[in-house]
């Protein structure tokens, strides 16, 4: 497909803990097209950020290891030199961070922080740069850009700061954008605005976006395609409508079931048993989700779960989804006590 902007193949990102490497992202294959938003959801610790950081090569080199390929416009950016990456980062590849409070240099005025990308990636003159910064600030919906230009981060509200962070990310019209939980720290109204903004920018710039979030609502609203991650792996990947209408993987279904927005009445919410295992304790063989659905018989899981394309564009890992039913009361005799 010509449209393909980013192609992640068998990506494995490992971190060194006490002289041993543990994979936080394990054999992930994904692709993003132009003008497409790929949503990534999953519980905390499932490897979403680790994946996003890997794409930009932001992990500290001495403590992490990246295997596999990340093709950006036919170039494997997992393998290129740091200098080359630096060219791409902030230029063609933009990144929006989660916490607007700490993502900005507290001692630098806003204007300069945005301008820095321009200095690094364009040949604009000083005056032009300033003009462009003001433009950007307007673009991200800041009403008095001239004032904000000279302000320091602490003088802005959280929503404003997140806009600035977005401004930095899009300053060089990135072809590809990674937004790592861009609205988690914000109020719903502001979240709506920021999400709208990202969408608008994506359309204007015709860029591909990876939107990392743990809020299913956000994905439902934003994404064209959704990858559900669990324990470093993609367990389900599908176009957004398909996923919400027809979730297959037990994990996806559980996530949807436990969302209170789906349960208006004062009914019981669905609870997923257990917790996400920590990196060093991840089961590396078999179905990683098996421990959390103990009532599903072991034979239902694959030995080496693979992604199956069950309908065009809809992939599910492991075949346990076929037999998965939500637990009945008696299955849960350990109840929530043992999670």
């Amino acid at each position, binding site marked *: 497909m010509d449209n393909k902007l980013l192609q992640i193949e068998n990506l494995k990102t490992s971190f060194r803990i006490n002289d041993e490497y543990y994979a936080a992202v394990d054999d992930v294959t994904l692709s993003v097209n132009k003008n497409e938003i790929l949503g990534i959801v999953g*519980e*905390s610790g499932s490897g979403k950020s680790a994946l996003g950081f890997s794409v930009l090569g932001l992990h500290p080199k001495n403590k992490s290891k990246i295997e596999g390929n990340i093709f950006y416009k036919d170039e494997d950016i997992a393998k290129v030199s740091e200098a080359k990456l630096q060219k791409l980062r902030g230029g063609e590849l933009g990144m929006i961070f989660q916490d607007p409070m700490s993502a900005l240099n507290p001692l630098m005025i806003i204007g300069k922080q945005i301008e820095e990308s321009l200095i690094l990636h364009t040949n604009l003159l000083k005056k032009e740069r300033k003009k462009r910064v003001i433009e950007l600030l307007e673009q991200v919906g800041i009403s008095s850009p001239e004032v904000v230009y000279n302000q320091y981060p602490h003088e802005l509200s*959280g929503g404003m700061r997140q806009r600035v962070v977005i401004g930095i990310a899009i300053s060089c019209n990135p072809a590809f954008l990674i937004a790592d939980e861009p609205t988690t720290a*914000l*109020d*719903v*109204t*502001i*979240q*709506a605005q920021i*999400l*709208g903004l990202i969408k608008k920018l994506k359309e204007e710039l015709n860029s591909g976006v990876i939107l990392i979030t*743990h*809020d*299913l*609502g*956000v994905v*439902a*609203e934003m*994404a064209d395609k959704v990858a559900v991650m669990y324990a470093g792996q993609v367990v389900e990947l599908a176009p*957004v*409508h398909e996923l*919400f209408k027809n979730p297959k993987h037990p994990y996806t279904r*559980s*996530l*949807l079931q*436990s*969302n*209170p*927005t*789906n*349960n*208006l*009445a*004062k009914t*019981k*919410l*669905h*609870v*997923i048993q257990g*917790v996400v295992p920590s990196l060093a304790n991840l089961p590396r063989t078999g179905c990683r989700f098996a421990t959390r659905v103990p009532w599903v018989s072991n034979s239902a899981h694959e030995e080496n779960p693979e992604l199956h394309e069950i309908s065009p564009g809809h992939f599910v890992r492991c075949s346990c989804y076929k037999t998965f039913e939500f637990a009945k009361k008696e299955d849960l005799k350990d*109840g*929530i*006590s*043992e*999670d």
Partner: protein
Amino acid sequence: MEFLKIKDLKIHFPIKAGILKRTVGHVKAVDGLNITLEEGKTYGLVGESGSGKTTTGRGIIGLNDITSGQILINNKEMTKRNIKEFRRNVQMVFQDPYSSLNPKKRILDIVAEPFRNFEKLSKAEEKKAVQELLEKVGISADSIFKYPHEFSGGQRQRIGIARAIALKPKLIIADEPVSALDVSVQAQVLNFMQDIQKELNLTYFFISHDLGIIRHLCDHIGIMYKGRFVEEGTPDDIFNNPQHIYTRRLVASIPDIDPGKREQIQLSRKKINEDFQMNTNKYFDQEGLAYPLKSISNTHKVAMPERG
């Protein structure tokens, strides 16, 4: 029967500026709230960040000094002097399950702390009581010698709840008890809170900015904006019949789980936003604050200026 009654509660903080920390003004974090709540019910307090939700909660439990107003429980006013008594009846569940448990203490000590303050129990009695409590919140009784870091977020939050219900309080203030948790864990805690409410006939004062949760859980909802209510009512009133532009915008901002409704939501949001932009003056006074509440039905109150 009104169980909790808050009358014209005001909590103001001085603003200190410069290195000299001079008071240059006041933040009216809570500015004239009136709340009544029946026993066994759940009150939900919603609002954007900084609207004064936490301050209200802390005011009720006495962690913040009240500038003016009254807090009555069972028609008894809470004062500085009888606060100790109130403490037994009012407890709090905190937002952050990681920092709300002292990392250097064993679960036993954490959960037993209220006993030690209010009741003279022998070591054995205390241990038993703690084990009972832990079982109630679904944590195996032999965990008492573990440390908080040995538990997951959801478990910790339940330990926090166990501690809060140790003295059999009547009112529990829960300040965003699940916002630090993943949805899956969230569900667990919310379910549990509902269970225990029924069991102990607890009254909840539930603070959150997640409207989904509020809607799921609460009997009454108050929407706060800059220290005042803009609207108050049942979930039905608020979500299906929002009157104040602020509420409407808030409700419209909730992302919907159904990707099919995208366009529709987008459109309504746009409309409401325009409305909001245009009609701010109509809904807020000159200082941009909400007007006093007016009843528009039995349960539903809105902050609208007097007509005419």
